[in-house]
């Protein structure tokens, strides 16, 4: 099972390779400020995800807003599978909560 921060990181690099600052910003914006990891926590998670083979360091992508000195991270095939598995697990929980009438909000 992934931690919430790890899942958010995988989702952030899902769109394409990104550096630490962009990943942190993406997480903060998408969670509406609820998740705002410290730089330390962010890099610890990045290190663990790299060790587990879910993301990998890559060269800077082509583009104008690229800083060659930065480390960029990209999702691996194993990472994609992990995200799918995690979302399936969450989906199962949502279905269960609906069946038990503990969660009545409609799917958007």
């Amino acid at each position: 099972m992934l931690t919430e921060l790890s899942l958010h990181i995988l989702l952030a690099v899902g769109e394409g390779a990104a550096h630490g600052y962009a990943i942190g910003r993406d997480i903060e914006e998408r969670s509406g400020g609820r998740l705002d990891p410290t730089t330390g926590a962010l890099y610890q998670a990045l290190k663990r995800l790299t060790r587990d083979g879910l993301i990998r360091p890559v060269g800077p992508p082509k583009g104008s807003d690229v800083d060659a000195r930065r480390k960029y991270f990209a999702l691996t095939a194993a990472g994609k599978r992990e995200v799918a598995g995690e979302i399936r697990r969450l989906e199962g929980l949502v279905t269960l909560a609906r069946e038990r009438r503990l969660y009545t909000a409609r799917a958007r």
Partner: protein
Amino acid sequence: MRTAERLFARAVRLLPREFAAEYGADMVRTFARRAADRRSRGGISLLLFTLREVAGVAAIVILERAERLRAIPARSAPHRDLLSRLEHMLTELRHAGRRLLRTPGFTCAAVLTLALAIGANTAIFTLLNRVVLSPLPYGDADRLIAVDHTAPGVGLITGVGISSGLYREYGELPSIEAIAIHVVTETTLSGDGAARRLSSLYTTPTLTDVLAVEPALGRWFTAEEGTP
């Protein structure tokens, strides 16, 4: 490099060597960008952000070092249990801190309650300490009594004073071993240099007998010197 960045870079250097070598420089760059975002929001925002970030790195330092120790067989790392407890405590602390920040009203009420409770406790202790634990620094302090005269009829609650006759009268009472009068006041000392205001005391020579003390310097007044 600015102060905030320097502070953060110093904290990063405490990380395990491989971690710092692999990610340290990038962490500092990421921090610098995030700090620049905060800098535009003002000094306090930047200060709070920097403190939080440095604490964040410190937490990772402990967690990473704990993890490395966990990888060592138990026999050669007797502190493992302690470390996992420490790690647990750290998680709890961070959790508590985050919850307190999220509910500022509750946090304020809790801090105020604590402040009041600590204040009340200090006051009670001060009183107990003076009265019970370490009473007046005089011999037979429990036998000392202070006599005050009042005249409630004319609205004088305290400090009516004593006449010389009454003073002699009191001194002859069988239950009184010694008696002294004192008036606390202030006196101006002038002479060499600038004049100084000193706190002083008018008293009878019997004061040393009552309090069972000796002057720290010089000699006390003799009974003859006290005769009018």
